């Protein structure tokens, strides 16, 4: 299967600022790929180079195998969904969706059919003669999607597609958007700074920082096995310890001594450099368990790390309980699902535990 979009060693500078630095990736037909990173990481510049609003300085952008060098945006077949939707406010929904068709060489007779087919796809039949100003945010997003998909683009680029919507609506539309993209089999790149958006929409997530690709993989892989501290911190919450490995504890488990003197059982990394190097160890908050019954370690399995601490804060946020526990002067965040359990009060002493396989170890300063 040949790649629909391929970037080979693409670099782009603005003055002395390197916006995109030697980026290469390829996207297969029908794949949804998320480009995730903080603002200024180069993800938007990458999107603009694929769509033709910027040109790479080095490297090449191929769409369906054709080098796009020097092609203006209207000479490429790329569908764009803008963050602000960019609907034409003086045109009706119908006119917006039909706009690209006349320029993309659709037969004039075929246009009405194509438009109603697209509006049917995004469930907006009946809204044909409304203006964008008369639609809700979610409806506008769907019109913009219909307009971008109508021209049968080779690749669809979505720029922060859900960020203009409020939190509740975002959750609903996320699924709808994914199902529409899958229904038309669109090859898609989603550019976003929102971890949940990237992970829920993308088959593959590419994490970018400072213009470079940090890691690429399935959402679960990125979350469970981040290769650097940047990726681990950017995706989800995490409790960090820095320290060194101080010997084996049997069963492939090694003892990790933290800088504040705690001892943690972690899986031995395969890394041959591990000997005396500094490492950072992180435990996801949902992997830390509160032990029932004060001081009774029976609730914890073999080899688990048990830490004593004092509840600093407990907050019931809805489906989750967030517990902040003070352990040797540092705060650990623990997330539990709420199942009607009794909640501690700030100041109580508790014990928490986590397994060696719940520890993620990355090189220091990564």
């Amino acid at each position, binding site marked *: 299967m040949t790649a629909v979009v391929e970037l080979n060693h693409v670099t782009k500078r603005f003055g002395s600022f390197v916006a995109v630095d030697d980026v290469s990736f390829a996207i297969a037909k029908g794949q949804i790929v998320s480009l995730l990173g903080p603002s200024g990481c180069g993800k938007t510049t990458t999107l603009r180079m694929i*769509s*033709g*609003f910027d040109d790479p300085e080095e490297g090449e952008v191929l769409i369906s195998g054709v080098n796009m060098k020097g092609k*203006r*945006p*209207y000479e490429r077949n*790329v*569908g*764009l969904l*803008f*963050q*602000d939707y*960019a*609907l*034409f*406010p*003086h045109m009706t929904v119908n006119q917006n969706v039909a*706009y*690209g068709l006349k*320029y*993309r060489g659709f037969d004039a007779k075929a246009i009405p059919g194509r438009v109603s087919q697209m509006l049917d796809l995004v469930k907006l039949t009946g809204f044909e003669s409304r203006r964008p100003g008369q639609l809700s945010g979610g409806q506008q997003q769907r019109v913009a999607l219909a*307009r*971008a998909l109508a*021209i049968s683009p080779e690749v669809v680029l979505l720029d922060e597609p859900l960020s203009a919507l409020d939190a509740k609506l975002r959750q609903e539309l996320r699924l709808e958007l994914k199902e529409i993209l899958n229904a038309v089999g669109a090859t898609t790149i989603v550019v976003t700074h929102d971890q949940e958006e990237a992970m829920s929409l993308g088959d593959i997530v590419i994490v970018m920082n400072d213009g470079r690709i940090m890691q690429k993989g399935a959402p679960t892989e990125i979350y469970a096995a981040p290769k650097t501290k940047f990726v681990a911190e950017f995706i989800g919450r995490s409790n960090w310890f820095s320290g060194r490995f101080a010997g084996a504890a049997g069963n492939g488990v090694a003892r990790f001594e933290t800088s504040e003197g705690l001892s943690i059982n972690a899986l031995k990394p395969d890394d041959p450099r591990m000997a005396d190097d500094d490492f950072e160890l992180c435990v996801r908050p949902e992997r830390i368990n509160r032990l029932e019954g004060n001081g009774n370690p029976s609730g914890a399995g073999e080899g688990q790390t048990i830490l004593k601490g004092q509840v600093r804060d407990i907050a019931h946020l809805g489906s989750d309980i967030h517990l902040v526990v003070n352990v040797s002067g540092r705060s650990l965040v623990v997330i539990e699902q709420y199942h009607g359990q009794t909640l501690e009060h700030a100041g109580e002493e508790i014990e928490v535990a986590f397994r060696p396989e719940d520890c993620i170890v990355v090189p220091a300063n990564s």
Partner: protein
Amino acid sequence: MRRWFDDIGYAVILFVIAVTVLFLIAPIVVSVMMSFDGRAYLGKFPPPNYSWHWYQNFFSDTFYLGGLKTSLILAVIATLVSTTAGVSAAIVLDRYEFRGKQALEALFLSPLVVPAVVIGFALLLFFALLGVFDGFTRLMGAHIIITFPYTVRTTLAGLVGIRKTLTEAAMSLGATEMQAFWDVTFPLARTGIVAGAVFAFAFSMDDVAVSLFLTSPDTYTLPVAMVSMMRTNFDLTIAAAAVVLMVFTFALILVLDWIIGLERLIGKGVFRS
């Protein structure tokens, strides 16, 4: 006790406003009433009786009518030319970043900064240098130059609100940059462009400082006619002329208000002076 300072503060402000209102309204009201004065001479205010006879004088005086005709022709042509040039200039200023953009912007708006008498005198010299002594041609050039900044400003104000992503969206859908302009930018900037045209028209109609330098004995504008009548033959026909000119301007402003709303105009600072 502290509240008392608040209350006296309001009182002072309200007094200032009341005085200002009086001085803004009263002269205009007096002039309008005097223009309907039924007496045949310039008498005391208020007029004892009212009639249209100063207006009849105005509309039967070939000197005034000559000025009105020249003013209208000048205003129409100046509006057309400066709107075309102003829109082109505004598009370039809005869309592109280039060296010297700031200088160009300052230059386009310079007729707003240079005193009107300086522009008038400079054009007088410049046209003499070019060998142009025809009054109408000189006035035409001058009115285009002094109305141009208004069309640039209002078009720019209209363009500023149009998101760049709209043009990009059109281009991603297959339109060239020019097609995107005509399909998307132009319809959305239309109110700003119309406002600029109306202001250009009104400003051309009302100018006196620049026109004074460039009139010839047989080509003069209505405001210039009023000034010279004030010196040579002062009577209330000038009041009628003033009301005619004011009604003209107000009608234009009302049209504009109806099209885009006065508040937006004030807010965008496109109000002519």
